[in-house]
């Protein structure tokens, strides 16, 4: 085993990088759930769409333009999804919601193929970040450090917004008890809409960030969905703390599992998930109680 | 028949039950009085096991059942009705009673025959339906009958398990004076060997059916005695005229 410090630093950064990518995805999903009790299986498709939007826009106006455009493009789609599907499904129960968004996965998968074709798109790393930096004696790709920084920044902003602002207090009230929040004069429906759009934008941002790192293919959304769901189930549906904790746990277990116990990497994560479900069925940091 | 010793429970800093010790003899009918928030329903929840007490024990027919689950206590003869209707809404009145009776007769867990059409279950359903005056509604769906009928069914379902001890949480809650009178008759018609513990708001009903009365305030037993003693108690009057009145 490689026991030197550099190895641990490097793998630690890898774990953190994966965690932050998953955090960007799961935080939107989990807050939407906390507020609306709605699990959107098509969240992964939104992520894929973000990657496609970033790659397409990026080809025309450069990486940073693409990074900016993607969240708005996906949020715009989120508006459509909200108006056409989500709003009507608010009271339909989890099964119907899961199935509608399940259907959406396949619809969006085929739409991506129709618009962009089945072949992978290119999404180069921006020149500014196309190098490596040395941290604690370890050379690490600058772009990955950017992903880590961006994830931490978003986490900070969300923690601030949710914890310190009035809109954050309203959202927390809504998560806690939506009827009560409505009684207190909060326009809950409008707040749902807002949070849903922000969640979609974050998924789009995650896709845009992932594009230069991974391959932009139609099925990328389907691939990320299960890890994202594992993150929010471990962390506890509906809480920011849960999303970050779940992401970190997943990133660490996945990364170090892959390196140290390659044969058991995915069994490990599912085993952990099963343990959490048995011992704490609502996850480690549930939004309520 | 049913006994508690020093039952205590708190949620955070709020003590909802404090050192509650009760003792009910077989066939005794006791009414629990107390203002809103006195911890009556929480006490019930601890008795049947839906909430675990922090301290103290619950005894049923001499057996310590504190560590037992809700269903285990139920199978030992402890049954309850709820203040808020807790019925099988999509099913018929007959099916509601039948489900309860099929547990009593041990048919709830077989895969060979229909539990609801068994002779013993059907007999129990009829008996209970007559006891709680539900015969005309047997085939109606719960969601289609009136609120009052549902209140009767609430008690009926609890009765259909043929319990030794029946806990009733405000059986007349939300019904008019006419119906409440009906409940009074209904309770008096129940078999005398059935031990009853009733949370009740309606003082007339309480005094009409109770053998004994317990008063809870802020989670503590503040009075324990016969209805006659209760009537004369100044403490009860204070509570009754005080916070109680506003409820």
């Amino acid at each position, binding site marked *: 085993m490689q026991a030197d410090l550099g190895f641990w630093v490097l793998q630690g950064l890898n774990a953190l990088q994966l965690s932050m990518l998953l955090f960007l995805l799961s935080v939107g999903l989990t807050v939407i759930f906390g507020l609306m009790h709605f*699990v959107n299986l098509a969240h992964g498709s939104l992520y894929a769409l973000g990657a496609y939007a970033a790659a397409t826009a990026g080809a025309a106006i450069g990486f940073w333009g693409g990074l900016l455009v993607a969240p708005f493009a996906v949020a715009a789609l989120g508006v459509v999804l909200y108006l056409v599907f989500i709003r009507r499904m608010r009271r339909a129960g989890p099964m119907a919601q899961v199935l509608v968004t399940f259907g*959406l996965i396949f*619809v969006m998968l085929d739409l991506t193929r129709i618009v962009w074709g089945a072949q992978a798109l290119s999404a180069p790393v921006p020149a500014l970040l196309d190098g490596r930096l040395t941290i604690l004696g370890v050379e690490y790709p600058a772009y990955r450090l950017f992903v880590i920084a961006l994830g931490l920044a978003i986490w900070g902003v969300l923690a601030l917004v949710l914890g310190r602002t009035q809109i954050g207090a309203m959202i927390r009230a809504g998560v806690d008890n939506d009827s009560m929040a409505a009684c207190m004069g909060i326009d809950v429906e409008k707040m749902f809409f807002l949070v849903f759009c922000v969640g979609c934008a974050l998924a789009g941002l995650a896709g845009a960030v992932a594009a230069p790192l991974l391959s932009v293919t139609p099925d990328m959304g389907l691939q990320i969905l299960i890890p994202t769901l594992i993150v929010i189930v471990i962390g506890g*549906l509906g809480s920011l703390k849960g999303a970050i904790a779940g992401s970190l746990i997943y990133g660490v277990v996945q990364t170090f599992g892959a390196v140290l116990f390659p044969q058991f990497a995915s*069994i490990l994560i*599912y085993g952990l998930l099963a343990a959490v479900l048995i011992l704490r069925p*609502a996850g480690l940091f549930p939004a309520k109680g | 028949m049913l006994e508690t010793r020093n039952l205590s429970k708190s949620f955070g800093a709020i003590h909802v039950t404090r050192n509650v010790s009760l003792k009910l003899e077989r066939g005794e009918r006791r009414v629990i009085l107390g203002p809103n928030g006195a911890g009556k329903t929480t006490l019930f929840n601890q008795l049947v096991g839906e909430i675990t007490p922090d301290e103290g024990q619950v005894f049923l027919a001499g057996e310590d059942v504190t560590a037992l689950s809700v269903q285990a206590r139920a199978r030992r003869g402890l049954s*309850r009705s709820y203040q808020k209707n807790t019925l099988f809404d999509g099913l018929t009145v007959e099916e509601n009673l039948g489900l309860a009776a099929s547990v009593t007769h041990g048919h709830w867990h077989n895969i060979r025959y229909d539990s609801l059409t068994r002779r013993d279950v059907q007999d129990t359903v009829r008996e209970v339906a007559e006891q709680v005056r539900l015969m005309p509604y047997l085939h109606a769906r719960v969601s289609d009958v009136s609120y009052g009928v549902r209140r009767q069914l609430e008690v009926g379902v609890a009765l259909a398990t043929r319990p030794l001890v029946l806990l009733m949480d405000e059986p007349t809650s939300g019904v008019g004076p006419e119906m409440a009178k009906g409940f009074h008759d209904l309770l008096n018609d129940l078999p005398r060997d059935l031990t009853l513990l009733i949370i009740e708001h309606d003082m007339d009903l309480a005094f009409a059916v109770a053998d004994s009365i317990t008063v809870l305030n802020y989670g503590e037993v503040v009075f324990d005695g016969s209805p006659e003693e209760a009537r004369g108690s100044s403490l009860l009057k204070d509570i009754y005229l005080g916070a109680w009145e506003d409820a």
Partner: protein
Amino acid sequence: MFRHTSLRFWALGLIAAAAVLRALTAEYFGVEMVAEIAILAILVIALDMVAGFGGMVSLCHGALMGAGAYAYAMLTVKVGLAPSAAFAGAIAITGAASWLIGAVCGRSHGIYFIMATLAFGQMGYSLVFEQPVFGGDDGVSGVPRIDLSLIGLDLNDPRTFAFACLFVLGLVYWFATHVLQAGLGRTLTGIMHNEQRMRALGVNVWRIKADMFGLSGMIAAAAGALAAQHVMFVSPGLLNWTVSGEALVVVILGGLGTIIGPVIGAIAFVMLKHEVSAHTDYWHLVVGLILIAVVMSRANGIFGWLEQRLSRARPSSARDVIAHQVRKDLAAQGALEDA
């Protein structure tokens, strides 16, 4: 509560007649479709037993079917057991696994239950995919069909095999409706309508859920063992969560909590899929849109809609019950009074 209404008898009779007619007269692929539909119908009956009568909306039934298929394939190909013994073995193994899943997941409700079952399903998928014993991505080939030459039947004949599948489907339909009308099924329905009350009546809730989930898993395993024989091959894709999602969609398409409805759903789904995929490579898109429309419509699937139109006594729709239950759960979580 499951009841055999006359409409359900009529539907059953019509389906049986149509299936037999088709199995007798259709061309090769038509006969294959009968087998495919019958196998899917068995799976969705298993799912409807727990979802439509216990509110246990499972996203691992595809994995359970896959487990049955793999167990059958492994027992015949690798262990060398006789196919009929392997069939029984597959049902027993999968039933046990399914019982455990039901026991563990039975404690959670609503979306948590869905997620928990999804997790267990994916766990099975990973296990099969990554352990070399199971043949990895390549699966296991050369899976034999049961030898019924003793009673003069050759299951290798597509028509005979289709009839065998229909026979098993009939058996499963009888078994499922029988269990649902027995104490276990009645109690489970009670739990779906009001779990708290059922517990207060003395019912060991997790046990009922686990038992029904186990039985359902056994039926799913039968579907899997038939699927393995049908294609004479098993691969990990069978266990993927999208198969479970599809099965759930089929149940909704046909009518949750009606048993006969999901069978109709299976017929509609398979025919729709073949019809649309003959015209476009983007058939996922078309089928997806149709399914979304069905789920979003208020009707309880094809059969639920029929029942509503044709029968005077409207049976309670399991879909409504589950949706209602969720509202109550949510309200309870927020410590709210019912409006």
